[in-house]
């Protein structure tokens, strides 16, 4: 079945179980009559015997119809809603407050312009979890606190990063944090698997952990001296992990033109969802971008078979700067 979703101030979309479509009403000056069971010449030819009159009823008629075009699900609102009340842990008094800005799956289906599958998938992508029936995003500080418990335990037990046992984690950390939260952080930052003996382990995502720690460092200032940051960052990650700047795609941007070089936080999820607005925002932050730098910030705009190159052709203008191809806005920046 299909469902139309959207609030009064939004353009309507039609959703199937797993896809989202922009809707447009198309008018025709002709009349369209629908006839159930009406046969085409081919179908009648095949049935030579029937020369009788077939009484058919016209089921209805219309002068307009809906035209659908597959579109990106509008999921930015999902994060926005869940960020209204991030989960700060069981001790937080805030949680005993009203359920006003808390959302169940049903609530989200009514408010988000996307199909159910796209919504559920996105909830997984953003590491949301269900607490008492409501979908919650963890407050970043609380999330780092949980992650820190786990990484410190991994270090003190000298577990290999690819084989972190669930049971032991729950046992050692269960007194500090809710068991569901311990398991949740392991699921968010690791890949769950079961060994031959039937025990549950996690293979930790080195890149994701390094990235989270970088965010923790970067959010404390407007920008950082790049080399200083890289040093502190490497020292802050768990033993055995190696930091690399490419882990920070879509999270932070390096300014190679400043002396010394600097790095600052720029999260793609904080940028506008609409294509034109996104490009305006990016060109407002920096006048000229290389393809390498801008790609992580426009990748998510690509439609089903669209490339980053196609987007750049449409929304940007290219030029050469010091032998390198750069992109800038098509419009004059005021």
């Amino acid at each position, binding site marked *: *079945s*299909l*469902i*139309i*979703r*959207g609030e009064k101030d939004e353009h309507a979309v*039609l959703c*199937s179980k*797993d*896809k989202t*479509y922009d809707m447009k009403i198309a008018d025709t*000056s*002709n*009349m*369209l*009559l*629908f*006839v*159930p*069971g*009406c*046969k*085409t*010449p*081919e179908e*009648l*030819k095949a049935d030579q015997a029937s020369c009788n009159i077939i009484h*058919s009823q*016209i*089921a209805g*008629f219309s002068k307009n*119809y809906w035209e*659908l075009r597959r579109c990106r699900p509008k999921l930015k609102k999902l994060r926005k809603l869940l960020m209204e009340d991030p989960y700060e842990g069981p001790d937080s008094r805030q949680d005993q407050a009203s359920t006003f800005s808390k959302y169940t799956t049903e609530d989200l*289906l*009514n408010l988000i312009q996307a199909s159910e599958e796209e919504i559920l998938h996105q909830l997984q992508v953003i590491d949301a979890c269900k607490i008492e029936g409501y979908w919650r995003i963890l407050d970043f500080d609380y999330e780092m606190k949980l992650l820190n418990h786990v990484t410190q335990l991994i270090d003190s037990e000298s577990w290999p990063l690819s084989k972190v046992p669930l049971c032991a984690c729950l046992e050692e950390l269960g007194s500090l944090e809710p068991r569901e939260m311990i398991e949740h952080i392991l699921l968010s930052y690791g890949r769950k698997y079961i060994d031959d003996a039937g025990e549950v382990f996690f293979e930790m995502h080195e890149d994701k952990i390094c990235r989270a720690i970088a965010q923790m460092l970067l959010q404390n200032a407007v920008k950082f001296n790049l080399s200083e940051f890289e040093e502190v960052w490497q020292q802050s990650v768990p033993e055995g992990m190696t930091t690399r700047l490419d882990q920070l795609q879509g999270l932070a941007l390096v300014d190679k033109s400043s002396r010394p070089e600097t790095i600052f936080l720029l999260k793609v999820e904080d940028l506008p969802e609409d294509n034109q607005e996104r490009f305006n925002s990016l060109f407002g932050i920096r006048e000229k971008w290389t393809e390498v730098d801008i790609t992580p910030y426009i990748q998510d705009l690509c439609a089903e078979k669209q490339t980053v190159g196609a987007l750049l052709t449409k929304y940007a203008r290219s030029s050469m700067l010091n032998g390198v191809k750069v992109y800038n806005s098509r419009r004059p920046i005021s």
Partner: protein
Amino acid sequence: SPCLPSGGTGALAQWVLLELQGEVEPRQSGDLAGSLLGDLHYTCEGVPVLIVGHHILYGKVVQLEKPFAVLVKQGGASQPSPTEPHGHYTVTALIKTKLLFKTRPKPIITHVPKKV
């Protein structure tokens, strides 16, 4: 085009679209509903011919590049309320073919009195 329910096209009715130029009006001032539109024939070459009232229209069979799906609204009030989902529809039928009539209807002259 939207993905169809996994019942396969066997589970969905196939309808045909009749596309006419202009308006269709009932003969007397009655309703369209329940009235006879006309007779549809196909010539040996498969050309659809529609006889409406005293007029004859010649058309052609067109395979639709983008098929239509016929949606039926499921339950609920005609005006969606804030607490209800915004409009639930089921696909009842598919339309892949249309009979397009865009030539001018020709009046059928059945009797021409001869001058004696």
